[in-house]
């Protein structure tokens, strides 16, 4: 886990987020802040009517100051007014014209919102100009850029809502190039990915040499925090797997397996998965609103599709016919081959020395059950595979979203691959041989090693998954 970099704080870079009304300025800030309580969002013009600031920290150091501004609504008239004003006062520099306009703001009550934007633009280091690429290329947008460029501050156009609008994106890029704004950025607040955020900070680095180190610290810090979230989620998924795979229930040997035993086992799996779901949503700070927006198959903190329903199996390409026992399988009992091998030579020696308490304990209950002629019920392979695939897909969805996006977007297609990792069955075998790990995580090197392996699978999956 990263600890805050201990460096002398410098003045944070002031970043004004500007643009036409209803283009997602506040959404972008929420995503950057990872705070869905910032500002107010609505699908209507003029939702934000004030300038609101918030700082972004790298640990304890404020690196960026973001300013959310009201949207431009009537830039054409504003530009006309500025042109008229320019003739009367003969300002030497464009910024001076803006300052003069702001000084006479009382004369132009209709531009109260635009005045706030201009005032903030003059008081900022960089302007992020947010563009909804779904919009047509209207004159008012060109007027906005022309007005903003008078502030004499670097402008970074940010293309929002790009998912599925690649043609529009090309048109907008050309449009911005007319204004010599080539260093544009694609940042979708709906289908957010961390790389885009990183590119934003890198652009700022190139514009602000002096703050290069502070911005780099921010990039590194956010990278670490992001990777930590991934790691935490992957570790939680491993914990779920261990809980479920290590589960065993002693059942009477005669007369088959009672329904009550199967039901108890199924409830255990459902509960375990629900707890994991709650934790995973919490790790990524997912609210109910986010769950709805991302169209997660989750309702009231529970999976919509029961894990033991044949449809759930089918969704992930598993063969439902094989689950004759509804998720239950009779345990293999003592398996000295895999159990012994998984223990490793050291533990074998320990056991041979007659001091292997752990080994003895591991088989103690099993021996007792065998003595009584009972069997072990454990969770079957299909259920475990489904559990893993489901969590993997959930993780993928959780890592690809923006905070507080208003527009829903289908991100979880059915085209995801349902292949299990190569050493999956070995993992399950080893877990099943260690019922001790069911209660809590263990500091046993073998447990740790398996955990590392699963975390590795999941984070690898994340890194290569398409954005």
């Amino acid at each position, binding site marked *: 886990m990263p600890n805050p970099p201990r460096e002398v704080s410098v003045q944070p870079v002031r970043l004004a987020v500007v643009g036409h009304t209803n283009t997602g300025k506040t959404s972008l800030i929420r995503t950057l802040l990872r705070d869905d309580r910032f500002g107010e969002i609505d699908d209507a013009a003029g939702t934000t009517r004030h300038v609101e600031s918030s700082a972004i*920290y790298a640990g304890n150091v404020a690196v960026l100051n973001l300013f959310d501004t009201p949207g431009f609504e009537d830039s054409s008239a504003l530009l006309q007014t500025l042109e008229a004003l320019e003739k009367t006062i003969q300002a030497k520099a464009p910024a001076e014209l803006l300052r003069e306009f702001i000084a006479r703001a009382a004369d132009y009550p209709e531009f109260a919102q635009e005045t*706030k934007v201009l005032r903030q633009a003059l008081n900022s280091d960089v302007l992020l100009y947010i563009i909804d690429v779904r919009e047509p290329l209207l004159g008012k947008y060109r007027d906005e850029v022309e007005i903003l460029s008078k502030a004499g501050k670097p402008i970074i156009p940010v293309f929002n809502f790009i998912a599925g609008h690649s043609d529009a994106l090309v048109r907008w890029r050309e449009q911005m190039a007319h204004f010599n704004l080539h260093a544009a950025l694609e940042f979708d607040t709906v289908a957010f990915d961390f790389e885009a955020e990183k590119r934003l900070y890198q652009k700022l680095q190139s514009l602000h040499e002096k703050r290069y180190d502070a911005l780099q610290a921010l990039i590194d810090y956010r990278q670490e925090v992001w990777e930590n*979230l991934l790691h935490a989620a992957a570790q939680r998924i491993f914990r779920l797997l261990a809980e479920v795979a290590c589960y065993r229930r002693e059942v009477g040997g005669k007369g088959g397996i009672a329904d009550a035993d199967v039901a108890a086992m199924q409830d255990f799996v459902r509960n375990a998965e629900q707890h994991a779901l709650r934790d995973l949503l919490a790790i990524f700070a997912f609210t109910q609103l986010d769950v709805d927006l991302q169209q997660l198959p989750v309702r009231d903190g529970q999976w919509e599709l029961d894990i033991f329903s044949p449809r759930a199996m089918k969704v992930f390409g598993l063969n439902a016919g094989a689950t004759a026992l509804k998720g239950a399988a009779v345990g293999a009992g003592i398996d000295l081959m895999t159990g012994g091998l998984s223990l490793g030579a050291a533990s074998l020696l320990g056991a041979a*020395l007659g001091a292997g*308490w752990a*080994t003895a*304990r591991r088989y103690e209950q099993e021996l007792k059950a065998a003595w009584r002629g009972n069997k072990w019920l454990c969770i079957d392979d299909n259920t475990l595979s489904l559990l893993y695939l489901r969590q993997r897909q959930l993780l993928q969805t959780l890592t690809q979203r923006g905070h507080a996006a208003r527009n829903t977007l289908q991100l979880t297609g059915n085209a995801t691959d349902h292949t299990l990792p190569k050493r999956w069955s070995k993992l399950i075998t080893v877990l099943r041989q260690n019922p001790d790990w069911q209660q809590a995580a263990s500091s046993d090197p073998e447990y740790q090693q398996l955990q590392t392996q699963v975390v590795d699978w999941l984070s690898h999956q994340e890194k290569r998954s398409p954005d």
Partner: protein
Amino acid sequence: MTISDFDKRVLIEQVRAIEAGQVLADDTAGLSEEIPAHSDFDARLWQRAQRLAERNALWPELGRAAVLSRRVTTITLIVAVLSGALATGYAVNAGQAINIYWLLLVLLGFNLLSMLLWLVGISMNLEGLIEGVFAKLASWLPSQLQTESNVGTRADRAWLTCHFSGKPGKWQISTMVHQLWLAYMLAGLTVLVLVLMARQYDFVWGTTLLSDTAFVKLTEVLGTPLHALGLTTPTPQQVAETRIGALQTLTAAHRYAWAQFLLGALLCFGIVPRLLLWCWAVLMRGLARRRFALDHYLPYYIGLRQQLLPLAGHGRIVDADTAPPAAAATPAIDPVPHQLPAAAHWVSVELGDDIHWPPTFVGAGNDLGQIVDRDSQMRIQQRLQTDNDPLLAVAVAAARSPDRGVQRTIADLIADSAQAWLVLLHSREQGAISTTRLAAWYRLAEACKVPADHVISMSVD
């Protein structure tokens, strides 16, 4: 008293265990002001744990396990001392003649065996073994601690897990084992010195299976380090003479040499190695405790990190909205399809790419064009001025959100018209238009003085 980082982390883990079972009164919001700006996550967690312990009066529960463990340690040490003293006392109480190798076996043999086992365990890194031992020990704990789940037992269990599992646990158990054997042997040594001072013993040895020379050799080998330390050890002749039945009476020289050999062997082969191992274990335990880290990847800590070390500050309004609150929302009336006078001129405002202009129902003669920027507006405005009191239909895309600029444009357009209509165009592929969007257009019509029944809806499909 300064508290070590390890103890701080154990306390944080204890609080975590307590919080897993119940919600504690927490005021993290007030905490942020108390914490020095440059403290790291662990320091913040420590502050929070302390605060929670204070507010919820948890200190007695949090400290219970440590107190209990100290007591248990003291009791086992006493037991070790007693058993060391008793075993020695018993071994030398047999009579005037002491079997020297039997005594050595009592004092050192089991110690040596246990040391060997421990060495194998440590060198092979048998954490499972250590954990297994701990699990066995834990199963002897009061059953109430194992099954009950209240604040106290959860705190105790967390304390035990931190101290007795993983690397710190391995070395903690090692330290305790060495400590007990040290106590056992030191007690034995003390008793031995006392009885040897107060009483006179003859040292003898005997064997049934081994040859006599083997014992002479053994004594020589064991005596080498003692000799190097300047202790008197029995000469081969003295060894041979102390065999049971070899001599009738042993001299003081015999006794002195054997007594020195006995005490020296106890020190050299029992106490000193244990002492060294104990020091090593204490060092390693310190190291393991220093390296003991909280698992920050647990959802619990991820959540706390977001609270205690936020990525961003809270929003602060720097330029407030001074405009009067917006007028109450105009209720939207469903616009009805409507017939416009055939002579009406058509102009569209910011239609966007989804609606093709002109639609089929607009004749080429009536089409004034589209407004997309200032130039096109100026051009159309000029054309309108040439007409006297025209009938004007302003087409907009119903799906788009109206802004002040659109409102001003429409107001400018219809300023000189005799009659004006606001036509909300929509295409089927855009789907239904939300009521809030319709309401926004009605508000715009109202602001532009277009009567509500002049707001009409038309499909371009």
